C-alpha cells in the first residue's frame, strides 16, 4: 500500500515532464498523448488524469491548443509547446537528470563512500 502510494505520487510528478517531452517533439492531440503515455510499460497511467493536466499546462501558457476538425468524430484539440513551455521543459529535464543522478549515487552507495 505504501509502495503504491509512493509510486503514484512519483508518477504523477513525472507525468508533466513526459507530456512536455512528447509534445515537444511534435504537435499531438489529447487522445494521441494519452495513448502514447499508456503504451509505455513502466508508466502505468489512469488515462483520464491526463486531460486536466493538459488543461492546466495550457492555462499556464506552457502548451497552446487549437481545435482541428476530425473525420472520425468530434473536433480534436491539438497541443503544441509554447516558447515558455519549451524553456520549462528544458529546465525540468535538467532538474530530473540531476535528481536521477543524485538518487543513483545514493543507490550505488557512492554517497556513503564519498563522505567517509
Amino acid at each position, binding site marked *: 500500500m505504501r509502495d503504491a502510494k509512493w509510486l503514484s505520487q512519483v508518477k504523477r510528478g513525472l507525468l508533466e515532464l513526459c507530456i512536455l517531452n512528447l509534445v515537444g517533439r511534435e504537435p499531438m492531440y489529447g487522445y494521441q498523448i494519452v495513448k502514447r503515455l499508456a503504451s509505455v510499460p513502466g508508466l502505468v497511467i489512469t488515462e483520464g488524469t491526463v486531460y486536466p493536466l493538459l488543461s492546466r499546462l495550457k492555462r499556464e501558457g506552457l502548451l497552446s491548443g487549437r481545435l482541428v476538425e476530425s473525420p472520425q468524430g468530434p473536433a480534436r484539440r491539438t497541443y503544441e509547446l509554447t516558447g515558455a513551455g519549451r524553456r520549462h521543459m528544458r529546465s525540468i529535464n535538467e532538474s530530473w537528470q*540531476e535528481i536521477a543522478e543524485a538518487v543513483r549515487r545514493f543507490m550505488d552507495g557512492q554517497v556513503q563512500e564519498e563522505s567517509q
Partner: protein
Amino acid sequence: MKPRNPEASRLEADYLARVRSALAGRETGEVEEVLDAVRAHIEEELTGDLDGQVSLVQMAGVLERLGPPGSYVDESERATASPPPYVSVSPPVADGVADGELGPEGRENMAGLLDRVWWGYLVAVIGLYVPLIGLEFCGLIGAGILAFVLLAHRGIAERSFRFAGKLAAAAVIIGLLNVPACVLALIHPALGILQLPVVIGGLVVGLMLYWNVLDGAATVVSRVGEAALADRIRGIRVLYLLTVAALFCVGLLAGVVAVASGVRNAQLELWWLGYVTLPLSWLFGWLFILRPIGAARNALRSG
C-alpha cells in the same frame, strides 16, 4: 458519433456528470475543455470497435481505463497545490546546494560561483594580445580561471556549468596552440594558414563556452523564481551570437581585402587594429557577458 445502446448512453452520461461535479469549483471553460476531451477520447476508443451499437460492456471498458471521476480532481487540484513530490523531495548534493527551492545557503553558494565566473570573464575580456607570438595572455588566464571554477561545480545546472568548464579548458589548449602556429607563420608566411583552424576553433569553443555559462546562469535564476531575468539572459546570449557572427563576417571581409591589396602578413601589419578595437570588445564584454552574469548573481543575493 457512434450509436450507443440505451444502457451505454446512460453510463456515459452518468460518468460525464460525475466528472463535471468532481471538477465543480473550477473555471467553466476549464471544465468544458476537460469534458470535451473526455468525450472525444470515448469516441476515439469506440471508433475501432465493430459495427452496430456500443454495448454497455464496451462503454464500461472505456470508462474503466479513463479512471474514476475522483482522479480528475486530484490532478486538477495540483494546479493550485504545493509543487509535485519529485520537486519537493530535495536530494542533498555537494557544496550544500539543494535542488528545487534554494535556501539562503544554496543561493549564496550559487552567487559565489557566479562571482568567480564573473571575475574569470573580467580577466578574459581585458585583452592583452602579444601579436609577435600570437599570445592572448589575459584570455588564457581568464579561460584557465573559468575551467578551474566550473569543472569543480556540483549541483544546480551542473551539466551546463561543467560542460562549460571543459570548453574553457579546451579554450586554454587552443590559445596555447596559437603560439606555435603564429611562430611558424613568422618563419614562413605561407604557414600562416595553420592559424585559420586555431582561430576558428577558438571562436567556436569560446561561443559555446559563453552559451553554456549563460544557460547555467539562466537555469539558476529561474529556480529562484526570476523567470523574467532568465528569459532576458537567454535573449542576451542570442543577441551576442548574432553580433559576433556579423563582426566575424566584417573581419573576414577585411582580411580578404587586406590580402588582395598585397599585405604580405596581415596579422603583423595590422596588429594595431586589435588595440583600436579593444574598447569595443570591453563594451561587448560588459554588455553581453559581465552584466547578465552580474545580474544573475545579484538576483541570488537580493532574494
